[in-house]
């Protein structure tokens, strides 16, 4: 009997504003505890929230990027509960009227298992709403007490809630990655998962095909894609085993332990709070005008899916290429610069280098595109020399390695290393004549039909030119001369 897996995600993205969502306190990460906690962050008596327009602009940009309905009027509500790192005793969030309504994100799924082919899928986004983050409780060295750091309290979050449209860990991870890429792409979140700027809660349930949805358990606060995959795989197997052994799934919130690879319940539904949501009387309803929408629309860069389509149409690139090229705004930017340096007709050359050498080298060094040590200008310069036949492909690889390790521009490296290939047909012809003269027996064999020997002659000629002969030219000349 097979099982179906049903997964939905709630992602908390920290919006990249300089100040908090309801006060002027700084949001810079890593400051000394409580140095970024102003009167509002501490919730002194009498203080009031004032909405940060930058947070609203970022929410609108997200909504537009996923083709969502942007509510002309949305409402901030109070979610009431007591916790020491929640200074007001309530979190200001949005409840029944969120700023971003139904949208969708199309993702490219690469199945984890062996032979399955990559495919495209559209995940519906139920809603996205603005809210403030809580502070942090620190259970460290405080003489048996808990320390409270309110620096993070009031940091703006956009909580993005998906429909339960994903049916494997691979799809969930692909969605999370696409979302992660998108929020960075449109500049609303720095995407730093270590610092908690992008945190995922994953709702998982299983069911027999055709049956209604099973009871879900929510895996909280996953901050890496690897952990997400591990946590889902473990959780799915745990739920299946539980049911197959005659057990029932209880709705619960669980935590993933990366050390054991297991999920464990932290609270069951019986402990669920009654949050007593009601509209926050300190804040007016959030009204979004046509002008605000227009402004946000105008400030959006060309979106990944639009770029993908354009690369395919204009340059004839494959889905594989366009996906990698649009994996981040930096990657796409590098590609665009390279193409403008070497011309559209060489777009495939640019794509090959970016999806090949550049990606591989970044991977080897554990860097992401934003940290790439080679500039668009450097790379474009090198590609230009490939395109105009100054260097061969193997020469280019050496230029690239040098650039990566030591910097410098392509022409200087070519000059210094003598990598310029010989494209002087006279010189190549002379070289070929010498080889034919010195290998009369092999020439005879070739001419009697042993075509495979062609490679032997190419090797000799390349060696003789110290690798600098223009390969295409050499091929032509060799072919002509060998034919006799």
């Amino acid at each position, binding site marked *: 009997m097979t099982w179906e897996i049903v997964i939905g995600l709630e992602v908390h993205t920290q919006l990249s504003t300089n100040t908090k969502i309801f006060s002027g306190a700084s949001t810079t990460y890593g400051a000394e505890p409580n140095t970024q906690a102003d*009167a509002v962050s*501490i*919730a*002194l*008596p*009498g*203080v*009031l*929230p*004032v*909405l940060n327009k930058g947070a609203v602009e970022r929410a609108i940009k997200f909504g537009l990027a996923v083709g969502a309905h942007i509510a002309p009027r949305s409402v901030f509500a*109070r979610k*009431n509960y*007591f916790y*020491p790192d929640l*200074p*007001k*005793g*309530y979190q200001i969030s949005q409840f029944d009227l969120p700023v971003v309504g139904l949208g969708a994100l199309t993702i490219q799924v690469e199945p984890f298992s062996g032979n399955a082919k990559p495919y495209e899928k559209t995940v519906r986004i139920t809603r996205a709403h603005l809210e403030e983050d809580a502070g942090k409780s620190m259970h460290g060295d405080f003489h048996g007490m*808990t320390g*409270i750091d309110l620096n993070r309290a009031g940091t703006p979050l956009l909580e993005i809630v998906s429909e339960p449209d994903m049916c494997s860990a691979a799809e969930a991870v692909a969605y999370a990655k696409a979302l992660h890429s998108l929020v960075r792409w449109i500049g609303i979140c720095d995407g730093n998962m270590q610092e908690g700027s992008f945190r995922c809660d994953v709702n998982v349930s299983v069911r027999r095909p055709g049956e209604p949805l099973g009871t879900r358990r929510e895996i909280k606060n996953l901050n890496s894609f690897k952990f997400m995959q591990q946590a889902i795989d473990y959780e799915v197997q745990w739920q299946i085993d539980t049911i197959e052994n005659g057990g029932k799934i209880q709705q619960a919130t669980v935590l993933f332990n990366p050390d054991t690879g297991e999920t464990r319940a932290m609270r069951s539904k019986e402990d669920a709070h*009654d949050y*007593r*949501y*009601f509209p926050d*009387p*300190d*804040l*007016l309803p959030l009204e979004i005008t046509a002008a605000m929408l227009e402004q946000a629309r105008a400030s959006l860069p060309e979106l990944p899916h639009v770029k993908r389509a354009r690369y395919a149409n204009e340059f004839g690139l494959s889905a594989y290429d366009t996906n990698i090229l649009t994996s981040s705004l930096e990657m796409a930017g590098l590609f665009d610069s390279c193409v403008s340096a070497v011309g559209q007709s060489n777009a495939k050359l640019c794509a090959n280098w970016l999806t090949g050498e550049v990606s591989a080298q970044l991977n080897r060094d554990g860097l992401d595109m934003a940290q790439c040590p080679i500039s668009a200008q450097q790379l474009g310069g090198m590609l230009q020399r490939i395109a105009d036949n100054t260097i061969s492909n193997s020469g280019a690889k050496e230029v690239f390695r040098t650039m990566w390790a030591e910097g410098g521009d392509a022409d200087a490296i070519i000059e210094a290393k003598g990598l310029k290939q010989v494209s002087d047909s006279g010189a190549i012809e002379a070289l070929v004549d010498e080889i034919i003269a010195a290998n009369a027996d092999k020439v005879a064999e070739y001419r009697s039909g042993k075509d495979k020997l062609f490679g032997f002659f190419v090797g000799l000629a390349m060696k003789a030119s110290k690798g600098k002969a223009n390969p295409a030219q050499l091929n032509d000349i060799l072919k002509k001369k060998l034919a006799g």
Partner: protein
Amino acid sequence: MLNSSLQQLGAALRAKNISSVELTQLYLDRIAQHNPGLNAYITLNPEMSLAQAREADARIAAGKAGALTGIPFAQKDIFCAKGWLTTCGSKMLHNFVSPYDAHVISQFNDAGAVNLGKTNMDEFAMGSSNETSYYGTVKNPWDTARVPGGSSGGTAAAVAARLCAAATGTDTGGSIRQPAALCGISGLKPTYGVVSRYGMIAFASSLDQAGPMARSAEDLALMMNVMAGFDERDSTSLQRDKEDYAREINKSVSGGKPLTGLRIGLPKEFFAEGLDGDVAKAVESAIAEYRKLGASVVDISLPNSRLSVPVYYVLAPAEASSNLSRFDGVRYGYRAPEYSDLADMYEKSRAQGFGAEVKRRIMIGTYVLSHGYYDAYYLQAQKIRRLIAQDFTEAYKQCDVIMGPTSPSTAFKLGEKGDDPVQMYLSDIYTIAVNLAGLPGMSIPCGFGANNMPVGLQIIGNYFDEARMLNVAHQYQLATDWHSRAPQGL
């Protein structure tokens, strides 16, 4: 000096007939003498008050004095004032010295006014008799066996007893107007959003509004000029042009009847069962006086106003239950000395730090917001709130101002209603609808009832009609002298 208007005091200060230090000291001496019997003030800080007075004198000497520079005002202890103990009448904040100024406080400071001290109030402004204060009840200066009203009872008593030139109050369901009525002074609750709530400790955010309490409408107008105005730190503060609230105060139709053309609406619901006879009589005489001043009277109806007390006691506690969550013993204020764990710390700190009335309202508010009850209570109350506001909109098609009693009775005896919260809640029956609608309302003295206790006339205006209301009140105060009567023995 004690009976001078704010305008006269300002003029005397600027003419250097008296210094701000002398005037401040005069009040501090009176406070030292009379406050022990009245308990109108929670916190006094003569050093800080006199330092402000010296600054004011320097400003006057430099010729940079404004209308209120150098005048000593008392501030309700609901306003955070930098360096001042700010308790909100609660044990919960018994040790809270505010590190910042409320908007209202900084407006007075900027005007060069002197802060004489923080006045007593019902705990977190929840009460109508000032008996819920952790710092003891305030006595009515007209009869110290009686309550001053609440929640701005300390302010009302201080103004009536001439223990300050004038003072601030806040009004969530009548907390300026009812104590003003019971202590025989004038008080104005402005249109919601006219005075910033920044730094004013929240009770029910959608109803709370600060306003002036003084001995005359003229004084109220000068204070409004300082208190009102847009403040970007309060999202519900209204972005309007600065206005001069005294601009119409002397407006008068020529030919002897200054208020000719004014249409006064009398809601039949305000003169029905539950209104004490002595109050009704004083209010009716006031209406008769207004007719003499040229006004006409229209009978109107506010059919939904009978629901305002129940609606208020759903909405205000709902907001309060959330607003008071920050008082948890974690960061400031009262924390229980002993507890076993986090939940115990919360429970004990809040059980010991809050008084009975505050706890009652937190429980009501928590209940009405709870899952399964929200629609039946909170949402239903919000709907009725809109109907109550619509009643006023309809009424103002027929009249310019609405008048009636401020409170159904004069000041009652201390302890008289302590056991019956509903009886206590009904003392705000005529004032609450005004907060629910967000309208401006005021109370001015209009005579005395049984036991010689003051009676207040309530004047309710349309939105932003404060200047007209002040004119209507001032014309009455020119024709009568109820507002200038002072309690004996002080």
